[in-house]
């Protein structure tokens, strides 16, 4: 981690310290550039987390009996597609202070956080001050995660409780009260409603499988304080809202339940740099907003022994997501 931070600093610090370049003028002129560049670089994290959080809401289409309940720990990993490994840098999107070093091209593919670390995949970016002096450095490298573990994934973990209410309807709650320390804050809240559809359909309700519908919403907030002692307002904030709608079906076979569903998944994610910073007149200077969604289909298998459940499912969507759920269920 330390090395990675060092690398990230290299691009900025080396650019700033070269003899010819007044980096302050670049900075003032390129706040918008930084925003655009970062938005492309961070995008797969924000997108992937949105899809990841939407995993594991259900492990069966069968709803609880009245006041039946379940408790589960859900872990998910959204796998970034290969298209998320690069983003397009167009000179026309940036000010003259930040352009591709190669003047013969007007656009290039740069690595995202999940992109390549190889030099040949990282075009030179030229930082130019208002006097025309410039320094060029390689674009930021990817994290190397894909190289290290074989794929790029965004993980998440939540605790979920479900309770059976009237008319074969379950209320599902995801809740982590605000956790605050000197260096970070974190909280999460979400809820879902799962309702048995089969009971309303003549003839179908007698068939030996379960059909239901689920709508779910989740909000995750986290904040990391960059300099808690001297600049307590300086923080990096990461907020994600997700929404899920699915039609579910499941079939119980002895201790196993095969389940699946089709629907839609969507998210909004915000990455904000909060606080006041020297040489930047505007407070809260960086605000990256992401919004997206896709159709979703998943298939999973639950194993239940006595009260205990263990489930795994795979969801096909823009960022395919693998979820594992462990917990217990009663009634």
């Amino acid at each position, binding site marked *: 981690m330390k090395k990675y931070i060092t690398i*990230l600093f290299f691009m900025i610090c080396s650019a700033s310290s070269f003899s010819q370049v007044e980096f302050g003028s670049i900075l003032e002129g390129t706040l918008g550039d930084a925003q655009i560049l970062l938005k492309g670089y961070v995008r797969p994290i924000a997108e992937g987390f949105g899809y990841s959080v939407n995993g594991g809401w259900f492990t069966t289409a069968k709803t609880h009996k009245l006041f039946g309940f379940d408790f589960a720990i859900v872990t998910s990993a959204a796998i970034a597609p290969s298209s998320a490994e690069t983003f397009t840098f167009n000179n026309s999107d940036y000010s003259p202070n930040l352009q591709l070093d190669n003047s013969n091209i007007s656009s290039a593919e740069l690595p995202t956080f999940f992109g390549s670390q190889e030099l040949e995949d990282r075009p030179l970016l030229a930082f130019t001050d208002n006097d025309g002096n410039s320094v060029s450095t390689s674009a930021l490298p990817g*994290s190397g995660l894909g190289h290290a573990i074989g794929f790029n994934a965004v993980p998440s973990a939540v605790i979920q409780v479900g309770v059976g209410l009237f008319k074969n309807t379950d209320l599902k709650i995801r809740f982590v009260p605000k956790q605050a320390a000197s260096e*970070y804050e974190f909280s999460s809240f979400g809820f879902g409603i799962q309702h048995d559809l089969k009971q309303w359909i003549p003839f179908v309700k007698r068939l030996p499988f379960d059909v239901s519908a689920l709508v779910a919403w989740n909000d995750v907030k986290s904040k990391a304080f960059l300099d808690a002692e001297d600049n307590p307002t300086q923080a990096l904030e990461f907020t994600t809202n997700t929404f899920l709608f699915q039609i579910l079906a499941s079939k119980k076979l002895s201790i196993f339940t095969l389940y699946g569903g089709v629907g839609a998944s969507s998210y909004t994610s915000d990455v904000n740099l909060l606080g006041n910073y020297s040489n930047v007149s505007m407070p809260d200077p960086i605000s990256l907003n992401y919004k997206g969604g896709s159709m979703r289909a998943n298939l999973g298998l639950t194993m239940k022994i006595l009260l205990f459940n263990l489930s795994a499912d795979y969801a096909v969507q823009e960022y395919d997501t693998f979820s594992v759920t462990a917990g217990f269920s009663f009634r």
Partner: protein
Amino acid sequence: MLLLPFVRHKFISVSLLKITNKKQEIMTKLNFMKSVVLLFAVLAFSGCEENGPIQFIAVDEFEITLPISGAKNELSFDYTSPAESSIDISELLGEASSFVELYVEELTVTLEDYSGNKIALDLEVSALGLPFDYNHSLELTSGIATSIDLKNTLDLLLFLSSTSIPVTVKGESSGILADDNFTLKLKLKIKGIVEM
């Protein structure tokens, strides 16, 4: 929750800024970018450090002024920059641990403070004692930058023992020099590949 495992690393960055007073002055302007970079860092996965070294290309131009004195009525001059005023490429290295490649891509020469208008001379320029490969026969006009057409880039890495690069100029004029004191300003575009 994505951020939590990484928060504890945030102060590491501060310790990375081991810089001179001059650099510190510049760096104070960079608090914002420091925070921006931390954004990346906080989002990074701790396992990433297990990967091999990561390389960066950095390209910058370095200017050096070489004062030529006592040249009046002479046909030649020879000057090597002292250590304290040689090209310092430590900033090109930045926080990296080592250079993987280091070479000069472009060379520009400007004659300044010369009482005459121009000098026609055979000028040899070398860095770290290594001569640049180009047609040495030049005509320098006072105040006008002359871009040297290098036949090959100058590879400095093998002979680099510190981050200070002395530059030597040796000139031989076809006629006697008209000025006792003048300067040659050299601009070197240096490209380094660093590893960290």
